[in-house]
């Protein structure tokens, strides 16, 4: 599984998201992702990550060994820049 596939799955579940995925080891199973979406507004970190895991579905259980997540609302993203 490459970073692009992970990105595509996340976008399918979170259509408005800005998604950046990086394969951290080059092995196709360890990734880190930055995701910015209005869907995260008013949600805690646990719920935000659960939204991403849901978008990934079976891939998360079977093909992804590790995924580091940074989940931000558009306002939080603006503040960081």
């Amino acid at each position: 599984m490459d970073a692009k596939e992970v990105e595509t799955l996340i976008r399918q579940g979170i259509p408005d998201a800005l998604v950046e995925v990086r394969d951290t080891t080059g092995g196709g199973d360890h990734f880190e992702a930055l995701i910015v979406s209005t869907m995260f507004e008013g949600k805690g970190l646990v719920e935000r990550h659960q939204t991403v895991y849901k978008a990934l579905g079976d891939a998360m259980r079977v093909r992804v060994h590790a995924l580091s997540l940074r989940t931000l609302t558009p306002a939080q993203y603006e503040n960081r820049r």
Partner: protein
Amino acid sequence: MSEAIERIQSAIRGNKIQVFMKGTRSFPQCGFSAATVQILEELGVPFGTTDVLADPELREEIKRYSNWPTIPQVYVDGKFVGGCDIIRELYESGELQALVKAAVGQGAQQ
């Protein structure tokens, strides 16, 4: 109720701070579990750990129980707080220190 759920619940009830991890506190078997334990040790609070690698049934059950697909998983005061990324983020923002202090402090008063 499966026996694995009972083991999960008794660990969560028995420890104000409970970590389900790969490996043991002294010998973590995964970088994310190691990082999580390191942060909690830095806070200097007592916490319990359960090695999911030693209990395959619990390893599967905990993912359903928390609706969370990865290990480690941290519970504070019976509530699921998150995995390694969230623990790190809460630690950096100072929220973890407050959360843990409230949980442990509360235990001391009882």
